[in-house]
Structures are given as C-alpha cells and as structure tokens.
C-alpha cells in the first residue's frame, strides 16, 4: 500500500508518524490538564469527597480574601523590584565587560557561575548568611566593624528584599550574556560614524546603543518578569519554618497555591488561584510587549 503513494503522500504519512507520540503527549500532559485546571476552579473538592459544581464561588472567595490581596501585592513587589534592578545591574556589567579585554573570559565566567547553581541550595546558603549573630555571615561581618545587627529575614519590611536578592543574583549572569550578545550585534560602523562626528560616549550610549538594544531589552524584561512572578523555590526554602513569613510578608502567589492545594487540599480554591496566576502572567507579558515594542 505504502509503495503506491506519491512522494508527497509518503511525506504526509511520515510526518504524522513522527508527530504521533508528541501529539499524544501534548494533548494528555499539557492541554487536558489546562482544561482540567480551569474546570476544577469552578468546583469544590477536597480530594476525598465528590467534586461539586460551585460556579464562581472560588473566585468570589479569593477576591474577598485579605491574604490573597497581600500575596498578590507581594508578587508584584517581587516583579517591580526584581526586574528593573536586575536589568540595570546586568546592563552596567555587560556594557563595561564588553569594553574589557584583559581576562575577559575569566570575568565572564565569574558573573555567569551563579546561574549554574541550584536555587534550593543557594537559598539555604543565603539563609545562613542572613542569620542573626553569632551564626549568620552578614551579621557577623557587620558586628566585626561595630554596626548593629540587621534583621534580614525576621523583619516584615526587609524579609522580602532579602529573599529576592539571591533570585536576582542567580539570574544576573544569564542577562549579562544576553546583553553582551545584543551589544556585539550592533554594527561597528554606527560607532565609527559617531566617533568621526566627535559625539560623547554618553550620547552614543543613549542615542545609539540603547535604542538598538531594544529587542534584547524586551526579551530580558519579559523573561525575567515571568521568573519573578513565579518565584517559589527561594521563598519556600528561606522561610520553611513559617512558609511565606513573617506574617505572610514574603508569600508569593505560587506559594499560596502550593499551600492551598497540598497542605489544605482545597483543590478548587487552589485551581482558581492558578487561573489567576495564568492571567497575571499573560496580561503582564502582553502589556510589556506592547509598551516596549511601540514606544
């Protein structure tokens, strides 16, 4: 039978044969669960009993929950601090590293190394750094020069930035490499023309480099925003004795989802939170693409 097919028909047979297992995979492991998550978000279910249809009740409960609004705010604080800070630091490093020749590869390696670490392992390392005297490295260092202790993870104000710091640190190397690639891709002739015209390097930065880096900046902003909105590993591991604490001051949306689903087993309510997370990611990415592409 196969022999009688034309070359084109044979190609179609091969294509679908190659795609059969992947299509099954994407259907069962990606699309069906997506639909199921949305469906469960309209139901009440504690894993043991029956699933009962409750319509929008989970969403109503969520929007009336003060903890949700606290968590929602935290999630955006992670985003609004993390994205600009890591963008600026990584650009400054990349900009100067690009102009440095001596030990260039070695310096690049130093900046990239944290990207290769495991978030959980490094969360524990930083957690140790943040401990009060006589345990924590930072407070010991402060004490040795006579500065009073700093309540990194104990304070409701400072716990969130303290948890965010290792997340920014781990991602910097990746962003530096992307920025350097973006800088390399700018044609040399632009800079040469500017030099002949006697333009200052500050003007070159603002008028040539940054505008031409726009696609790179868009990529880094969208990519790192998604990462900060989904922060979980660092928070969970740095606050295991009281997840998301103190007083929910570090709790992001993903941690709330985890606790609702796998500590309280309130599957419907947790599913509604995941749908909200999905919409937040979608809206934030679309707004950023819109703003950064157009302006």
């Amino acid at each position: 039978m196969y022999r009688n097919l034309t070359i084109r028909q044979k190609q179609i047979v091969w294509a679908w044969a190659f795609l059969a297992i992947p299509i099954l995979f994407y259907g069962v492991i990606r699309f069906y669960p997506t639909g199921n998550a949305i469906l469960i978000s309209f139901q009440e279910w504690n894993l043991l009993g029956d699933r009962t249809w409750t319509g929008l009740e989970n969403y109503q409960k969520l929007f009336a929950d003060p903890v949700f609004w606290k968590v929602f705010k935290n999630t955006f604080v992670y985003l609004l601090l993390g994205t600009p800070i890591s963008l600026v630091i990584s650009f400054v490093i990349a900009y100067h590293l690009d102009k440095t020749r001596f030990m260039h590869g070695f310096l690049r390696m130093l900046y990239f190394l944290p990207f290769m670490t495991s978030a959980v392992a490094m969360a524990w390392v930083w957690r140790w750094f943040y401990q009060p005297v006589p345990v924590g490295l930072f407070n010991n260092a402060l004490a040795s020069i006579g500065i009073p202790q700093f309540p990194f993870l104990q304070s409701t104000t400072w716990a969130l930035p303290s948890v965010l710091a290792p997340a920014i640190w781990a991602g910097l190397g990746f962003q530096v490499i992307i920025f350097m690639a973006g800088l390399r891709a700018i044609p040399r002739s632009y800079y040469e023309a500017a030099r002949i015209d006697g333009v200052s390097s500050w003007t070159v930065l603002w008028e040539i480099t940054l505008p031409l880096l726009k696609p790179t900046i868009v990529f880094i902003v969208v990519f790192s925003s998604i990462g900060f909105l989904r922060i979980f590993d660092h928070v969970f591991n740095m606050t295991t004795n009281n997840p998301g604490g103190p007083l929910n001051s570090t709790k992001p949306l993903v941690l709330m989802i985890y606790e609702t689903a796998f500590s309280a087993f309130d599957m419907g309510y947790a599913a509604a939170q995941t749908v909200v997370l999905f919409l937040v990611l979608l809206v934030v990415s679309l707004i950023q693409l819109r703003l950064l592409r157009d302006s």
Partner: protein
Amino acid sequence: MTATEIRPTTDALLKTQAPKKPMNTGQFIRWLLLFLGGIAMVMPIAYMISTSLKWPHEVYNLKLIPDEPHLENYTYVLEDGRFYWWFVNSMIIAVITTVCNVIFDSLVGYTLCKFRFPGRYIVFIAILSTLMIPTEMLVIPWYLMSQQFGWLDTYWGIMFPGLMTAFGTFLMKQFFETVPDDFIEAARIDGLNELQIWWTVAMPLVKPALAALAIFVFLGNWTAFIWPLIVTNSVEMYTLPVGLSSFGDEADVAWELIMTGAAISTIPTLIVFLIFQRYIIQGVVMAGLKG
C-alpha cells in the same frame, strides 16, 4: 531572525572587540571594579564550599580558607545514605529527561521545519501556545492524574511532565532551518528512509544546538523543585533539591552539614559548566536570540 544569520556569529558574539592596547588608568579602574564585582558574585558559592570543609567550631568565623580543611562533613552526610539516594535519583531523572527531550524535541522540530503536510501550521501553533501555560497551573491536574494512575512517588511520576518541551522544539526547529533541503533530497535519492535521514543526515548538522538543549534540560531538571516536592512523599524518592530542603529543615542540623548538602547538589553543575563553558554560553546566546 533566522538561524542562518545567527550560527556563524554566535562565536563572534562571545569575543570582545575591545582594542588590544595596554590599559590606561580609566580602563584599569573599570577592570578592577569588574574584577571585584565578579569576586563578589562567586562569594556565596565560595563560602558554601569553604564551610563544607570546616569543623563546627570555625563555621561562624568569616575566614574563607578553613584552618584545617577536611572531608568529614561529606563522609558524614553521605554515610547515612540519604544524600546518596537523592543524588542517584536526581541523576537518573535528569539524564532520562534530557535524552527524551533531545530526541523528541528535535524530531518534532525537524518535522515542523522540513515536512509539508496539512495540519502543520495548527500543530505548530498548538505547541507554541503551551509556552504560555505556567507549570504551576498544571501541577494540580498532574497530581490528580498521578494519583489515579499510581504514579505518585515514582520516577515516572517525577519525570513525565518534562519529557518534551515547547521551548526545545522551537529551538530545534530554528536550527533545522540551517540544514539545506538539498542534503535531505540527496539522501532521499540515495534511498534512505525519513527516519534515517533525520538521524544520520540532519541531526549531526545541528550538534551545537543539541548540546545547548541537552545542557538546559539537564540543568532545569537537576534543579527542579516544586513538582518533585509535590509528587514524592517517601524519603528514598526525593530528588536532591527536595531532599536538601527537608534536610535543612530538620531542627538541629548544623549549618556546615547543610552547606555540604548544598555543595553536593551544586558542584556537579559547576563542573559541567567548567567543562562545557563554551557550549553553555553559546547556548544562552542562541536561546536568547530565539526568544
């Protein structure tokens, strides 16, 4: 941007174009600040490793070089067997997932790139759309599925969500664009079937992309936390991150032992990086330019 433009330039993108002249004062200050910044970046890693080599009484001093470095912490931590299982579990899961991704992502990427068939565009868009769905939205249905089919607390349960990724598929699809159609036609005339053409003609031509994909998938699965945390419940099935998290949480575990555990889960990827540095940085550039 197409892959053809990128491929010859990724290498050039890594090299500095800074002039080869001796440094003046300004350049030296720039270099010095970058150097100090770089040292600061690796300090957490350095302290982790240094503390893992210290005796308990010197853990809380600021010295980076231990007075009498020793491996007792490693023997102690590995002796009770848990870190050993967790290491083995993580390795098995990361390796199998990586092999699966390399095969299936490239097969799908190749098919979408080189075959013309009805439904191609729909399949392409469907797979692309899964990039928008966050893992966290799927964990609840995956957990229910695992519960129903008895996948909880098994290797398969930990691995199944990551066996193929849309990201890998698109990375590979882009790179197969660099493989000339003439090569494939020639192989067809030589009587190779499509499976042979993909494996023996196309795959060897995209080796750098395969290496980059393999490293990303390995790193992602080696450090994966939330799903293994949910799907495992017996200590022997934990992966390194989940194990380390529970180990650190035990009330009176000493910090030098936690640092040892952290070092055990970090050192393998650091070694991979030091060996394949070039491929990894190229991979980041390629993945970034595709994004």
